[in-house]
């Protein structure tokens, strides 16, 4: 069995130049943890992950190497979080995409797909090998559905 048989074709995507705000809305509306970001040709640019949003909500040093990981002395309220996000909200989403993620192809064998899901902990974009275009998405629910069939 290959990826093409279990994937969901034509997934929800965000265009790379759309503002961050739109990407955040898609995550919220669909309760997604990530959404693929594509260019005008439909080619994969990266994944916008909920973690990227969370990272924008805290001071930079908290998420830096050799930074201050716990920030025990900072006391924020939601206004502080909104303030940190406000400058970023209108910037294009491509600035915030994760470029290290696992992709699969329509002809990727099932085991590799399962392993990909296992390692990435989230939906995998399915990319056409030749054109680089996003053709589908495969989630762990797709696997679970098959098991219960």
């Amino acid at each position: 069995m290959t990826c093409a048989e279990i994937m969901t074709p034509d997934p929800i995507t965000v265009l790379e130049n759309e503002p961050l705000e739109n990407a955040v809305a898609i995550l919220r509306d669909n309760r997604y943890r990530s959404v693929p970001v594509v260019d005008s040709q439909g080619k994969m640019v990266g994944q916008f992950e909920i973690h990227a949003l969370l990272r924008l909500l805290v001071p930079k040093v908290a998420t830096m190497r050799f930074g201050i990981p716990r920030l025990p002395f900072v006391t924020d309220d939601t206004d502080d979080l909104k303030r940190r996000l406000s400058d970023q909200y209108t910037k294009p989403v491509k600035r915030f995409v994760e470029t290290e993620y696992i992709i699969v192809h329509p002809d990727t064998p099932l085991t590799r797909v399962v392993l990909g899901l296992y390692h990435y902990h989230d939906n995998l974009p399915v990319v056409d090998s030749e054109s680089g275009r996003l053709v589908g998405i495969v989630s762990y629910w797709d696997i679970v559905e098959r098991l219960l069939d």
Partner: protein
Amino acid sequence: MDVIFGMDPVWITGIIFVLTYAVIMTEKFNRAVVALLGGGFMVLAGIHNQETALEGIDWNTIGLLTGMMTIVAITRKCGVFQFLAIWSAKKVKARPWGILVMLSLVTAVLSAFLDNVTTVLLIAPVSLLITEELEIPPYPFLFAQILFSNIGGTATLIGDPPNILIGSLVKGIDFNGFLMHVAPIVPLIFLVTLGPIYLLWGRKMKASEEAMQRVMDFRELEAINDVALLKKSMFVLTLVLLGFIFGHPAGLEPATIAMSGAALLLFLDNLGHSPEDQSERVHNTFGEVEWVTIFFFIGLFVVVGGLERVGALEHLASKVVKLTDGAETTAEITTILSLAVMWVSAIASAVVDNIPFVATMIPTIKTTFVQLAASGNELSLEQQKTVWWSLSLGACLGGNGSLVGASANLIVAGFAERAGSPIRFLTFLKHAFPLMLMSVAIATGYIYFRYLT
């Protein structure tokens, strides 16, 4: 000496030395690896055998560095340094220029007693946090921290690697020597350096009331997450400091004091933990020691030891002696040597890492003294010390001349880059080099009027 291919030992040593230092300067390869390779070539080429190579390593320097790094690795876990930085920022009501001055002061004082790299690793993140909350650019803060970590480090034997080297390799120079002869000028350099920083940036710094309130809302006590560890660390740090002040003159070497302190703090930190737990904790603590720096020193000592062994430093020293040809008294010789050593060290340390420079200068200056004595111009112990103080001031302050002048500079630059406000090499040079010259000029005046007139 059985040298490879029957080559001239001075030549082959010179080639290995120059190559090693040249590759270190390119910064294309890890400096510890390059220094170790250089050391390895010295042995393989027949300049050293294993025994002489090991004799060249100054274990006092290695022990002092490792001991202090271990103590700091444990102490920093309790959060006391972050507490100190935030507490000082709140003391000035979170006003930007006040914070810059306070963080500079904290940096200078801490780096007098801790390694400079460690100091900036502790303070730079707090500065980034505060400037982000105040919505002002972090550059002036980070710039000041680079400068003041090197300036503060100049004050004590343990503050900066050049001083550690001088304190370890030169007989008759101890912890209190630095306190009495080098430290007194540091506060003046600190104050004078703040002036241009104020004119360039300080007077224009402004943050909104709301932003300053955010910093005032920091709960600095929360930074201290282990009160028991804080007490243990402060106890051991105090003992070690007392050891340097009273133990060193009584014959206890710095490495003994630092390593014993490290062992004691490791013991206290692991008290009450299961043996398995202890293994992991000790492993983690040792993992935080900067082995790159330690192995860099080891490699350099072997390389410089090779130069000493073949007598290459005699040539260098005789060139230095020539400088003093016109001098008629030992006082004049001391003046020429001190000023030349200070300015050459300052300029050289701005261009290359000051550690390898000082590691080579120390044996060269020692040989110079021997040659001078042989020609009837023996410098007194006090006169010799004046030259050593000049080397310390020149090499430590020179580290401020450029971004590559000292390791701490590069660490801060790396931070700034990751935070999205990179420090450019030329920008830094433009601001820092004149300030470095100014600080060395002050140091020159100090040495001249205190020791040379």
